[in-house]
């Protein structure tokens, strides 16, 4: 491992309270790979790129010649001299040049040639790293693509050789630091120790953060000293950016705040980490409070999500009912034109506004032709609650439009009605079943649409989820 985060200072930053060394190593081990993946996403500049290509080309071709000569007779490499050195020396140098040039070229496996959202990918990669290191300062958030962040990150995660040089430099400057920078801080250190220590009966004094005693510790040492204390403790309940069951987001929320809160975040992170490492451990009441609060919050979110989902399912079920009614009606009257229009008018709601996408609110109902067109172009097609409109209103459509529509959609409609009957017999569309998972219920919904719509519904579901999360949080 050439790159490594073994700079000692950062070890202390990443490490958490009461984290035993082997746990720390285990936590940090996968972070190396993730960090390298993140750094790989930053391509070298195009200038370096072209230099690298030239280097690879020149050294590769010349090296191939040398190798060919060596295959004929190895004495050639030893005895033919160009300038002061023999060919063997040149082979070595060419190898060096080749590897340097190679390192300047972007990695095609990581950065493919086709266009994609590199910024988002960088963000995700950075989040992955933070999942392991549990270190994600506020100015890193959503800015993983930023070169400044990349610099700050590579400051933590450096080449071993650079680390070694830093080590040497810091040995040289150590006397300066010890004699100049640190003595003025002596008073701070003393008062900090005074404030942070807590006595655990029977085992002497400990650092207060390591006791995981949230109530006591906040009361005695943090309140008054840091004003925004309440925000951080109430964070898990009312926090804006926390997603349920996403612990990393929860972490980043805590560390994202101001300095005093970041310190608190450390304690909470350590608390949860310690809990996962020691499953049998029974924490004190204050810690249990925190756990309960977070669990409640996660439950609330899950319920809210399920409720939203239930709305959609109920709406879909109502539409199915309505459709069946219409079909029965059509069986009586026998007008295919009429049926087409009704379905298109009531069934599809095109919602152009992304923000109100998840709400089931009465929005504009397009005319059938527009609806069909929009339906193919727009990703956000929604099922809509059927207003109790009598089917006779659709007779106002012009005759020509109707016939065109019918010819296009007749086939789909036959499939639709067949699907419909089978679907309606299933129990998944019972509106009472509240906690349906998306994987179980919603794919079957997509049978409803005609083929063009099928793919749209799949994507629509993801966007709806996003909107949901935004709204819930």
């Amino acid at each position, binding site marked *: 491992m*050439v790159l490594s985060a073994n700079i*000692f*200072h950062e070890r*202390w930053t990443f*490490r958490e*309270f*009461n*984290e*035993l060394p082997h746990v720390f190593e285990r936590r940090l081990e996968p972070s190396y790979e993730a960090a390298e993946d993140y750094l790989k996403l930053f391509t070298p500049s195009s200038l370096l790129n072209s230099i690298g290509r030239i280097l690879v080309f020149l050294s590769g071709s010349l090296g191939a010649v040398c190798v060919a000569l060596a295959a004929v007779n190895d004495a050639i490499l030893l005895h033919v001299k160009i300038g002061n050195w023999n060919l063997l020396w040149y082979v070595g140098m060419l190898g*060096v040049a080749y*590897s*340097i040039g*190679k*390192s300047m070229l972007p990695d095609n496996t990581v950065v493919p040639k086709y266009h994609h959202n590199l910024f988002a990918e960088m963000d995700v990669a950075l989040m992955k790293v933070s999942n392991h290191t549990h270190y994600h300062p506020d*100015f890193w958030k959503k800015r993983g693509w930023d070169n400044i962040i990349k610099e*700050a990150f590579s400051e933590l995660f450096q*080449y071993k*050789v650079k680390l*070694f040089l*830093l*080590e*040497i*430099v*810091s*040995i040289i*400057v*150590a*006397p*300066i*630091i*010890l*004699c*100049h920078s*640190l*003595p*003025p*801080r*002596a*008073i701070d*250190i*003393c008062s*900090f*120790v005074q404030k*942070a220590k807590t006595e655990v009966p*029977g*085992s*002497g*004094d*400990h*650092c207060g*953060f*390591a*006791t*995981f005693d949230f109530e006591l510790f906040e009361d005695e040492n943090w309140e008054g000293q840091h004003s925004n204390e309440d925000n951080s403790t109430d964070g898990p309940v009312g926090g804006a950016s926390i997603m349920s069951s996403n612990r990393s987001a929860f972490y980043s929320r805590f560390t994202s705040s101001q300095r005093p809160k970041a310190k608190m975040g*450390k304690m909470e992170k350590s608390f949860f980490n*310690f809990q996962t*490492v*020691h*499953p*049998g451990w029974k924490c004190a009441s204050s810690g249990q409070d925190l756990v309960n609060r977070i669990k409640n919050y996660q439950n609330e979110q899950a319920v809210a999500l399920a409720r939203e989902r239930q709305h959609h399912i109920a709406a879909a079920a109502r539409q199915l009912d309505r459709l069946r009614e219409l079909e029965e009606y059509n069986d009586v009257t026998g007008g295919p034109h009429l049926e087409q229009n009704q379905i298109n008018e009531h069934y599809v709601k095109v919602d152009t506004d992304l923000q109100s996408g998840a709400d089931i609110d009465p929005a504009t109902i397009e005319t059938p032709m527009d609806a069909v067109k929009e339906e193919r172009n727009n990703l956000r097609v929604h099922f809509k609650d059927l207003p109790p409109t009598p089917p006779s209103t659709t007779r106002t459509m012009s005759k020509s439009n109707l016939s065109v529509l019918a010819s296009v959609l007749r086939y789909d409609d036959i499939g639709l009605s067949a699907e419909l009957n089978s679907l309606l017999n299933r129990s998944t569309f019972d509106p009472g079943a509240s906690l349906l998972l998306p994987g179980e219920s919603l794919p079957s919904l997509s049978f409803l649409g005609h083929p063009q719509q099928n793919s749209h519904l799949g994507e629509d579901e993801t966007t709806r989820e996003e909107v949901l999360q935004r709204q819930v949080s």
Partner: protein
Amino acid sequence: MMLYILLFSAYGIFSVSTFITNIKDAFEARYIFKDKLGISERKLEGGAVEWHEIVKKILELQQSGEYRIAIHGQDIKDELVVAQRILRRENFMIAFFNNDIFDLTIPLKIPWKGDVNANARSRTKFYSKSLEWSIYFCVLSYMFNHKYQIRPTFCMDAVSLQRRFIFCGVVSFLFMPFLLLFTMMHFSFQNVYDFRSSKQYLGPREWSNVAK
């Protein structure tokens, strides 16, 4: 020259003595693991036993009264206390760094750039093993008395802490050449093989240094 021979031999003696104490501790640990906890060496090395299981066993023994570990007349209560005891000093160190207590920057002014430390985010912190050792010596080793309580005088007496810092600074200045030599040798012994075998991963900067 004589000084360096002395220093090296002192280091040699030091490492031999730590080796002996380590061996002693290891034998003691083996005795406890085997006889008291019933965990064989092979099982432990194979990773079949997790740390929390060990702690659980110790606690069970503690409660049943079969084998009691008591430090200063007090029993170990739960897992948290075990971890706290082991990591007492480390926890303080983490807290120091978390609160950014140490000032590890140097007062350097580059004429064309202004004060280096003006921007809080970009300033370089210098930290090395020797510096860590010095801080450990100055702060943490003086903090606790034999009962593992923080000495009251430590919190009151900032002046002597200052004095210790300056003393350490002078000592590290005196030992600087030795330390430099030592780190370089240590680094090269540890890494030369790695660099040779994995040269394709090295960036251009690294090569110019290692090639020499």
